[in-house]
């Protein structure tokens, strides 16, 4: 592994970590698509700031872009507040309009400068090590690493500082308002962070991958845990893992790094979606199946309890009677009885079923509690 490769992976990992932190809150608040809107609509901000300072490396470009990101949020809120369109429609109207404006500005006035649309949308991580940060002649490493590192620390600091407030505003905005936590201000602060993150990340990884890294790892983490703190940690870990494995996937295929990282994010989410311990598809299926058997066993013991000691018991408590009485199929009835026997809830004898003390206790409890 060369130094360049190491640096690319470092930048990718830092971008992933910086994106995952605010991403958790976007995903939890149901505003994941805001990241898409912001990451697209920063384009006109970059263009306008470029016209003002005429320097592609100026930090003012980042300021301009972050301001347009906030403008997007404000416009969406204003549109939604008129109650003439729903929020998702408002997003779908605002960001394409701003993005179009950016594309037109570039096409008309910036045709000859290096402000490449592809680069904005797709990014090129492989170029990250070429922009070096040099202070007094000393090479300190890629600029992107420092920019993203700073943004990541900013995100982390904000979340640590306002952890409690953000938590409350996310899960119970009404209570947060009542207690005077100013959820609206927090909302805008969070959106400002997303804007700054998107801007800092886009020239490393492009607008689309920003969305993948903001939404993907938090959505995956959400399937793994119910705790906010753990969600944050897991999101960062998963994001970094996707970034590094994505880099190697790109290395093997000789394909776009950003695209490969997004592919890994997809793979990571699919794995969580299928195999997450309690919220995964497989776990849910197993749980549902187990519940069906548990319920069937309860029905069986309750049925036996109902007829216990009564004259019709000999007829009612035969295995083949369960079919007509509980409308079970023969094989289902056989399996339920076998399970109940295994768990010592019932026993066979004299051609019928008898409740064991444990079975009777379960039946009595089930009748009372369900």
């Amino acid at each position, binding site marked *: 592994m060369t130094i360049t490769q190491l640096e690319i992976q470092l930048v990718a990992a830092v971008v992933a970590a910086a994106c995952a932190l605010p991403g958790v809150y976007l*995903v939890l608040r*149901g505003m*994941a*698509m805001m990241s*898409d809107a912001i990451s*697209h609509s920063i384009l006109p901000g970059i263009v306008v700031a470029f016209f003002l300072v005429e320097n592609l490396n100026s930090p003012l470009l980042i300021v301009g872009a972050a301001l347009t990101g906030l403008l997007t949020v404000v416009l969406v809120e204003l549109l939604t507040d*008129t*109650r*003439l*369109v*729903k929020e*998702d*429609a408002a*997003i*779908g*109207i605002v960001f*394409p*309009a701003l*993005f*179009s*404006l950016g*594309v*037109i500005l570039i*096409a*008309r006035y910036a*045709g000859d400068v290096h402000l490449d*649309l*592809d680069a904005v*949308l*797709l990014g090129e991580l492989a170029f990250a090590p070429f922009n070096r940060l040099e202070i007094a002649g000393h090479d300190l490493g890629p600029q992107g690493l420092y920019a993203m590192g700073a943004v990541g620390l900013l995100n982390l600091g904000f979340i640590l500082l306002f952890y409690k407030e953000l938590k409350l505003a996310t899960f119970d905005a009404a209570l947060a308002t009542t207690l005077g936590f100013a959820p609206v201000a927090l909302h805008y602060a969070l959106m400002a962070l997303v804007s700054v993150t998107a801007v800092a990340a886009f020239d490393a990884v492009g607008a*689309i*991958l920003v*969305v*993948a890294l*903001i*939404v*993907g790892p*938090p*959505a995956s983490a*959400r*399937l793994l845990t119910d705790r906010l703190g753990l969600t944050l940690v897991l999101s960062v870990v998963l994001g970094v893992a996707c970034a590094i494995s994505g880099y190697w*996937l*790109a290395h093997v*295929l*000789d*394909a*776009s790094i*950003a*695209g*490969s*990282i*997004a*592919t890994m*994010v*997809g793979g990571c*989410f699919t794995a969580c*979606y299928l195999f997450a311990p309690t*919220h995964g*598809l497989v776990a*849910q299926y197993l749980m549902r199946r187990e519940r069906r058997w548990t319920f069937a066993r309860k029905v069986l013991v309750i049925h036996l309890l109902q007829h216990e000691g009564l004259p019709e018991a000999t007829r009612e408590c035969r295995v083949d009677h369960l079919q007509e009485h509980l409308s079970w199929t023969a094989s289902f009835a056989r399996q339920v009885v076998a399970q109940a026997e295994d768990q010592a809830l019932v026993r066979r004898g004299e051609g019928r079923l008898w409740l064991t003390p444990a079975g009777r206790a379960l039946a009595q409890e089930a009748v009372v509690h369900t």
Partner: protein
Amino acid sequence: MDALIDILYALATDYTLRTVALGSAILGLVSGALGTYAVLRGQSLIGDAISHAALPGIALAFLLTGSRLTLVLLLGALAAGWLATLAIMAVTQTSRITFDSALGLALSVFFGVGLMLLTYIQQTAGAQQAGLDTFLFGQAATLVTDDVWTMAGLGAVALLGMALCWKEFKLLSFDPAFARSLGLPVRMLDTLLMTLLVLAIVIGLQTVGVVLMSAMLVAPAAAARQWTDRLGVMVALSMAFGVAAGVCGALISSLVANLPTGPTIVLCVSAIVAVSLTLAPRRGLLWRYLRDRRTRVRPPVAVPADENGRP
């Protein structure tokens, strides 16, 4: 007046302009019609997800067939967009992941896979892939008559499907629970509507591109919603707005140098939205302002609700 005659003359004589205007009109017509349902069902942003998700389909279609025929690439886009839609529906229905997260994931992951495939193609197949990245931003000027026919054919299928299931889609959009209670196959209808939506989106990819396609679905419908409370009128208006924006955008971009068609169309449709939000009778902002001033009080703003009680 002279300018108008000039434009009509150009439309009649200029092949490129005529093709582009016709293509944009078809795009506006179909996306305006189907976008109505997306907006009414609160799924406005699905267009954004589907249009991005089409990229791997285009790349794979090219990789597998080596063909650059518009129809082949569009079929690939259709397949990938459809797959993404099914994935979004499945994830939202079977897990705790919300609709917006599923959209963001499908959008970025499918697009990322497409980007990976595209760069893979580029380094294996040399420079032959030119024409694929026009789908990213759309290049209306590259439209030829065959493309317009393809668009018209796919668009006709989408509109026909919508017309045949008119009553069912209406019920599905406003009261899915009631539709289910009537015994309608709600899930199948949902999938069918989504499929038609994918069709509408795929049609627009070449003209306005992946990024801006979502606006063509949302904006005409959101504008039309302001003028009426009736679904039929809304669909008709939305189609009209879509066509108007498409043709105006194509014309303006042909008259001014260095004005890309896709973004111009989107700005036109955004202007229609702005006008509708301001001027529409009863709902519009100006109307509301005048009414508030007349009554000299400011009661809670009441927006006329549709038959489902939604604004």
